[in-house]
């Protein structure tokens, strides 16, 4: 039976059932504003078709049992479920495509247990990492998942997206930092998902490693209702150094040298290209006073014990100067590193073809690519954006960076980002289609060079989703079989990642 398309009809009877499950009308919200506020994410959005993305009702559960009962009801009636955490995801994972019940997990924000002996913390999916770490600080430990959205994204969304951390080279990314989870399956059962058994074990060889399957599925396989996370000793020392180059290829070469340095405290190396510097120079305070000869920048950060970081910092200062790298000074190095959550991508304004400042939303392409292909991809991506900018006048190229991406292995994989501004007020069907086509061309370049469309945000939006079967290649039938087996009625975040094909 084909289960590819349904737009939910939530009638009074279903609402009454939901109210009976939750037992608190304030947490069952069919009103327009509750739904409108949860219909988009910060990524470019078809604002001219906003209402098509409203959920039909928002539920704010507090327990796994409540989630389970709501999911069972949805499964019985064939109603879509969309899980949502912070709503900061940049690929529309938490945007309903077919209405339905939105499960907003923000009230599940408790710290259930801090275990300083076996070094774990168990939390609800609605907690934010910044808030969690404020609590953990007094114990001398940290949960080091540090996306640029650190102040606003939540653990549930980090798990849903299989997020990428700015400190991943040192501490790992979300999937490395989640030890086990409690998950409500699309059929409503509550299950413990780990490496094997054992809620606090980091490594097991018993059976299938299900934990990875339930990380990064974008809410298409279930809803995480509790997670047991890694606790890492809180770093004693932070060190950051920024180096300027007069040429991208020199900066690229130095990036390679730094990432292969073998320094264990290395938390991240970032290569900013000329367009990014141009963009920062034009109206951001960071680099304006820098001379024109600064055309690329490499940033390095380290965390650890002082006895490790201090000698390593001397080596970084030496390696960073390879290929004529010039140190940008202590103030920029420390200050810009501390600005890493907001500096490089999110001004929310760009320039039209006449150079006028206009309000724009932010697209952040986040391909995973190998070191060897970075220069070619950079050229092709900029050329694509320039072509669309010229033709439509509503796009702006905010430059690129490449950021170390392998967990504990900084040498060869990069999260490669091109930031593109989109003048949302100008969106109509034609301009939206142009954007989707631009987006798709960018993603196709990643595939052409043996990369992955996305290192962190997920491939749940137009322009990405239709390429998922191509990227998954011969594994695509396996993916479809898993989806069909776990979600027989296609209720979990339907329409995402081309997974409707599982039901054809």
């Amino acid at each position, binding site marked *: 039976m084909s289960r590819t398309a349904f737009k939910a009809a939530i009638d009074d009877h279903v609402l009454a059932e939901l109210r009976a499950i939750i037992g608190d009308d304030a947490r069952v919200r069919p009103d327009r504003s509750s739904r409108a506020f949860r219909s988009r994410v910060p990524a470019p959005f078809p604002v001219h078709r906003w209402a098509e993305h409203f959920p039909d009702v928002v539920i704010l559960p507090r327990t796994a049992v409540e989630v389970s009962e709501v999911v069972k009801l949805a499964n019985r009636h064939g109603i879509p479920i969309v899980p949502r955490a912070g709503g900061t995801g940049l690929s529309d994972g938490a945007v309903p495509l077919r209405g339905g019940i939105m499960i907003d997990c923000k009230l599940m924000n408790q710290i259930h247990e801090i275990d300083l002996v076996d070094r774990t913390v168990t939390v609800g999916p609605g907690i934010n990492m*910044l808030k969690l*770490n*404020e609590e953990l*600080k007094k114990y001398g430990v*940290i949960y080091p998942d*540090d996306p640029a959205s650190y102040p606003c994204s939540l653990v549930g969304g980090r798990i849903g997206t299989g997020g990428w951390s700015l400190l991943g080279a040192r501490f790992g990314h979300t999937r490395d930092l989640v030890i086990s989870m409690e998950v409500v399956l699309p059929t409503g059962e509550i299950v413990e998902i780990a490496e094997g058994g054992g809620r606090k074990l980091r490594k097991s060889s018993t059976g299938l490693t299900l934990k990875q399957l339930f990380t990064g599925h974008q809410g298409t396989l279930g809803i995480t209702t509790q997670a047991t996370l890694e606790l890492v000793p*809180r*770093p*004693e*020392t*932070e*060190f950051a*150094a920024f180096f*300027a180059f007069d040429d991208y290829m020199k900066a690229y070469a130095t990036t390679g040298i730094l990432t292969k340095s073998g320094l264990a405290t290395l938390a991240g190396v970032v290569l900013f290209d000329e367009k990014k510097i141009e963009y920062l*120079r*034009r*109206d*951001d*305070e960071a680099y*304006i*006073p*820098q*001379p024109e*000869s*600064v055309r690329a920048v490499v940033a390095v950060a380290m*965390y650890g014990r*002082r006895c490790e*970081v*201090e000698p390593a*910092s001397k080596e970084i*200062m030496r390696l960073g100067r390879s290929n004529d790298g*010039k*140190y*940008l*000074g*202590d*103030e*920029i*190095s*420390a*200050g810009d590193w*501390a*600005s890493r*959550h907001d500096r490089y991508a999110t001004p929310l*304004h760009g*320039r*039209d073809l006449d*150079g*006028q*400042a*206009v*309000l724009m939303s932010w697209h952040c392409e986040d391909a995973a690519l190998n070191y060897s292909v970075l220069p070619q991809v950079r050229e092709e991506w900029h050329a694509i954006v320039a072509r669309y900018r010229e033709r439509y006048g509503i796009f702006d190229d905010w430059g690129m960076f490449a950021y170390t991406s392998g967990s504990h292995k900084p040498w060869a994989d990069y999260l490669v980002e091109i930031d593109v501004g989109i003048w949302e007020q100008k969106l109509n069907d034609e301009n939206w289609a142009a954007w989707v086509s631009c987006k798709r061309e960018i993603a196709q370049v990643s595939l052409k060079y043996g990369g992955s469309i996305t290192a962190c945000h997920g491939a749940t939006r137009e322009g990405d989703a239709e390429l998922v079967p191509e990227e998954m290649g011969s594994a695509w039938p396996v993916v479809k079989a898993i989806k069909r087996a776990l979600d027989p009625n296609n209720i979990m975040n339907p329409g995402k990642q081309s997974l409707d094909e599982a039901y054809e």
Partner: protein
Amino acid sequence: MSIFRLGDQTPPEPRRITDTVIERLEHQFEVDPDLMQITPQQDMPVWDSRRIFNARWDHLDWMHAHFADEVLLAGELSETMPEDHS
């Protein structure tokens, strides 16, 4: 008692930094108002600009302290800028 000082309200005349950027208060750069015709610029009293600027430093200090006990600096000057700017 709150004190109202005119000088705290009205920003000084801008200094041009580049073709597209001006500076009214030290180290506080703004898009050239000529480029803000579609999206008009908000009028900001000086005290409010200063408040935001200073809060930025507080925020950065907070971020450092949030992730580690201490910040190690290379202790070297900028190699791209004259000393008074580095």
